[in-house]
């Protein structure tokens, strides 16, 4: 290929061939996520939804403790960083003083379903008018791959090196199904982002969540089953295959409520 055929982004825009543009609600900071990780896609579609709804300037996001602790470096909106597990309480505080603004939390499985179980259940039970985005990768990614509340039976992690023994360590917690039982929660769904069609569907679910918040109907809970190729000790491609074959049978995709 000769030099003259290499197109700059500007050339592409001028030729009208632009097929994708990063939303202005994502910063230009280089994401700290491992290549192949689902967090980045989940960030992108969340911010695209805010942009499409035109509510980026009225939204306050809450980042958890976990790999997405630095979400505020990538999401170009006002954000707060919450203590491990406490994001739903922090979001409650924000939403109660700003009932007309948009508030969401973005939390991992350790954050939401272990240390923050009480805050999660009670924010849901109060029907806080917020969106909770729950990234379930079945492991503690940030701290190096320890067992999570959602680690599958028999699945290896650094603290279940011989596989999760449910007799000793308990069963994986289907917190999403539990939350669907609570009257304050109006929409509960489980999505994934490892295939383009699924990404589109997950984005629609997030949009629906924020529309519910706009209409002040209650809490929308969106689980995204995601990979953690580093924590699972797999290549990105293999981690997606493993997710399909192992995570999805246990955590089936689709709407659970609403």
């Amino acid at each position: 290929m000769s030099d003259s055929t290499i197109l700059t982004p500007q050339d592409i825009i001028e030729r009208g061939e632009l097929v994708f543009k990063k939303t202005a609600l994502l910063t230009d900071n280089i994401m700290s996520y491992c290549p192949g990780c689902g967090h980045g896609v989940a960030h992108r579609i969340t911010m695209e939804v805010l942009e499409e709804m035109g509510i980026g300037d009225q939204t306050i996001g809450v980042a958890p403790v976990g790999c997405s602790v630095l979400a505020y470096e990538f999401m170009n909106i006002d954000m707060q960083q919450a203590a491990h597990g406490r994001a739903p309480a922090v979001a409650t505080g924000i939403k109660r003083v700003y009932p007309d603004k948009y508030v969401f939390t973005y939390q991992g499985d350790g954050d939401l379903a272990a240390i923050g179980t009480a805050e999660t259940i009670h924010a849901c039970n109060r029907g806080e008018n917020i969106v909770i985005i729950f990234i379930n990768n079945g492991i503690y990614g940030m701290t190096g791959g320890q067992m999570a509340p959602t680690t599958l039976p028999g699945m290896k992690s650094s603290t279940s090196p011989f596989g999760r023994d449910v007799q000793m360590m308990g069963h994986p917690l289907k917190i999403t199904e539990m939350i669907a039982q609570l009257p304050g929660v109006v929409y509960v769904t489980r999505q994934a982002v490892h295939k383009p069609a699924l990404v589109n569907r997950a984005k629609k679910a997030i949009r629906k969540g924020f529309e519910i918040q706009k209409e002040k109907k209650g809490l929308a809970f969106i689980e995204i089953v995601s990979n953690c190729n580093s924590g699972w000790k797999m290549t990105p491609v293999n981690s997606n295959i493993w997710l399909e074959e192992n995570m999805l049978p246990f955590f089936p995709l689709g709407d659970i409520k609403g």
Partner: protein
Amino acid sequence: MEEIKLMKGNEAIAEALIRAGADAYFGYPITPQSEILEYLMTEEPYKRTGMVVLQAESEIAAINMVYGAGACGKKVMTSSSSPGISLKQEGISYIAGSEIPCLIVNVVRGGPGLGTIQPSQSDYFQSVKGGGHGDYRLIVLAPASVQEMADFVQLSFDMAFKYRNPVLILSDGLIGQMMEKVILPPQQERLTDEEVEKRYGSWATVGKKAGRERNIITSLELKSERQEKHNHKLQAKYREIEKNEVRFEKINCENADYLLVAFGSSARICQKTIQLGKAKGINIGLIRPITLWPFPSEEINKAADKVKGILTVEMNAGQMVEDVRLAVNGKRKVEHFGRYGGMIPSPDEVLTALEQKLIGG
């Protein structure tokens, strides 16, 4: 027109909170401070001023709700008693690290553990030395009357916003539960976001307006160099607070031969001891620290030059005495007298202790 009422300390602080134009209160019941949440729920300030009141699922949730609302630049308070304040420590550390203004009230009961529901001052160390993890300071006010319970609310918010720092009111079961005459402050309007921004700057998460950088509330800094810089900034702020905000009361210190140092409920008891001493020809003065941090070290140091000995009186096993000794720096004998586990020292006991530890000894 002055509005005078007979109220419990806990009720006075709750009413003063509404009148300070507060935006929200988040709490969880625990004796001896449940009246605060009960009073607010009964008064329904959401109808009076639009103030939010919410019973949280735990003290941990309550302090994190304070974090969220406080980080929006709102005037927010939570209250609890000792075991609940222990649970809040993680959140308080995050609040101090992220520099969120807010008010925390501890109506102290005796410990350790579940302890007793009776009054105590055994959370002094926890309040003034940090309590949670990391190098941080709370501004700590110690009310000695129902009036001060009410008065310190607005004072706390003024300091909290001026320095972007959490303020703690360290009360106890005695002040919280007793009824006294109180002059209530007038009702203030709640501030709009624009007013908050004009007075205190644009740091709060209110929704990112076009043309400004996003506002981020966080205590995380992964680069050590930058975390140290952040710590330097916090320490500089603490030195500024030490310079500006020391508060204390001096009673009968002119010509006193012996000095009592006591805060809150204990200071009230010591006032009676001063009278008992007079009757016996013992001239006793009292310094009552009103801010426990910043501590009136300089004033105590100066006062030490003029007396023969110093006794701290505390409803604990000897906590503030360490700060008094540091202030006096070996110049004078500093002793401690305390009752604890919910026991309250009597003025006679204090006088006897003074005679034994400072005069007879």
